[in-house]
């Protein structure tokens, strides 16, 4: 549905987007991941005709954005939730959009309702909105014209965990109905739960792409990792080592180079009580993400992401999921 072919955007000698090619299919959510300044926003701006490409081409449903009549009815766009007139009320922002697209006024109420902005909030000026409220308003604006394609730049930015979960459900439902969703993020855990395919970008180039599992396979070199904690870690480590499985201590428990099912089997055989057993994927993906985009990271990373950090980030991710 969205087709990006050999897209390059240069600003003088600085190349913001460097010859990227990808496609987003209907009925799927595509996550566009990369650190700040990787070229995500520039790519999205080219998609909707706000920035001309230096080379290459972007089409949506076979058309250039500028050739789509009344584009709001086909493509919902949220590029910057703060790019709204601070003096307009939230309702008025939607009203202008609805009128431009030729939609009935009732659509505005439906959208306000959908993004949970109540009557009082909708009559406040955008200036007084929190980032999360602006984000909700922006999502409402993108959905106004019942588009079949959504292009959302950092839609989860500023949303609280409940809001992120709400948005995830919204976009998933949208894709399930046949919509095409393309969203960017610089936070892996915002995207990995929902994206059918992920495109990782760093320094303007695509550094990896694929489904979550495909990326994980690459990340771990085809080797699975399991995080496990037993009442007696020492006993479990011995049992696993006996089977020739590599074990490293990690935080409260162990990081094991094997599938969770194998670890469970060993524990069952030896009658070892486990208190925690799960796939160590997230850490692997996080590592991959940081590694692939390391050149463009602004912050110097420690050589190795420690087990504690992995556990902590997983804890955050599972809280968000909860």
């Amino acid at each position: 549905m969205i087709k990006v072919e050999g897209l390059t955007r240069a600003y003088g000698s600085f190349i913001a987007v460097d010859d990227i090619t990808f496609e987003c299919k209907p009925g799927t959510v595509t996550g566009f991941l990369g650190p700040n300044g990787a070229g995500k926003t520039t790519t999205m701006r080219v998609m909707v005709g706000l920035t001309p490409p230096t080379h290459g081409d972007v089409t949506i449903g076979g058309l250039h954005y500028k050739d789509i009549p009344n584009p709001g009815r086909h493509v919902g766009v949220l590029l910057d939730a703060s790019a709204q007139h601070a003096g307009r009320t939230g309702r008025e922002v939607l009203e202008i959009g609805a009128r431009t697209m030729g939609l009935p006024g009732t659509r505005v109420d439906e959208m306000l309702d959908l993004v949970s902005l109540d009557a009082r909030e909708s009559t406040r000026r955008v200036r007084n909105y929190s980032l999360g409220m602006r984000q909700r308003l922006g999502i409402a604006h993108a959905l106004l014209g019942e588009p079949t394609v959504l292009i959302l730049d950092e839609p989860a930015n500023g949303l609280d965990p409940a809001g992120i979960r709400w948005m995830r459900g919204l976009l998933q439902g949208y894709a399930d109905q046949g919509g095409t969703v393309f969203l960017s993020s610089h936070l892996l855990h915002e995207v990995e739960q929902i994206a059918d395919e992920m495109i990782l970008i760093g320094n303007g180039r695509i550094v990896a792409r694929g489904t979550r599992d495909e990326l994980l396979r690459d990340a771990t070199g085809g080797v699975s990792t399991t995080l496990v904690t037993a009442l007696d870690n020492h006993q479990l480590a011995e049992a696993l080592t006996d089977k020739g499985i590599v074990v490293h201590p990690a935080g409260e428990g162990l990081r094991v180079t094997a599938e969770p099912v194998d670890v469970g089997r060993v524990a069952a055989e030896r009658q070892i009580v486990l208190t925690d057993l799960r796939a160590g994927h997230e850490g692997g993906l996080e590592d991959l993400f940081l590694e692939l985009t390391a050149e463009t990271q602004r912050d110097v990373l420690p050589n190795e992401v420690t087990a504690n950090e992995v556990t902590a980030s997983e804890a955050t991710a599972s809280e968000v999921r909860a």
Partner: protein
Amino acid sequence: MSATTAPATLDVSHTPTVPFGRLVAVELRKLADTRAGRWLLIAIAGLTLLVLIIQLSVVLGQDLHPKYIDFLQGMNTPMGILLPVLGVLTVTSEWSQRTAMVTFTLEPSRVRVIAAKFVSILLISVAALVIGVLLGALANALYGALSGHTVVWGNPAKFAFYYLLLYIFGMATGFAFGALFLNSPAGIVIYFVYSFVLPTIFGIAAALMTWFESLQPWIDFNNDQGGLIDATITGKDWAQLAVSGIIWLVVPMAIGIWRIRRAEVK
């Protein structure tokens, strides 16, 4: 997933382009849907009324003999200063508030958006003219009733045409400067420099240099509009107005539109 069977093309056969009239209606709405915009419109109307009341009380108190066009001239001062500001802001607020991003994604043809904005200020000019002509007539009639003097109307149709041109020129020049600078303070300041400082400089230059004195009417758009204000404009004045109008209105507008078409909207 049933969803993957959805077609990978957009069916645009049932969506007509956004009609131009709808774009104009939206642009008109945008002029008044913020506190700043609304107060600017209220200020234009309020100040115009205030000037008229002062003018009426002065002519009555000093027993002067004003004609209809004198009241129109009085009102031209507040209108002439504030309408161009509205013209500037129509364009620049989209950039300073960054709403251009949304506007141009809903209507990718930037020229159509600019055209809709321009038509919206033309409509405001017409509204300003109607209000001005009626208020002026009311003031003139009141003057006649209160002073007992004969009321002089002159040629109201001609005046209406001239003042419509004045309002349009003022707003359009502001619009052009706004498009040229895409920045509210810069657009307004440069407009005021052009409107208040430049005539003085031209005046001094003309007084000092005779060759400039003969050139000035061809390049001084402000001064050339004087013939519309007092309705004395004749053949050659029209030619001069056209030439200076090209310099100060058409050229900045053309450059401004070219700039908006090419600009990367941030």
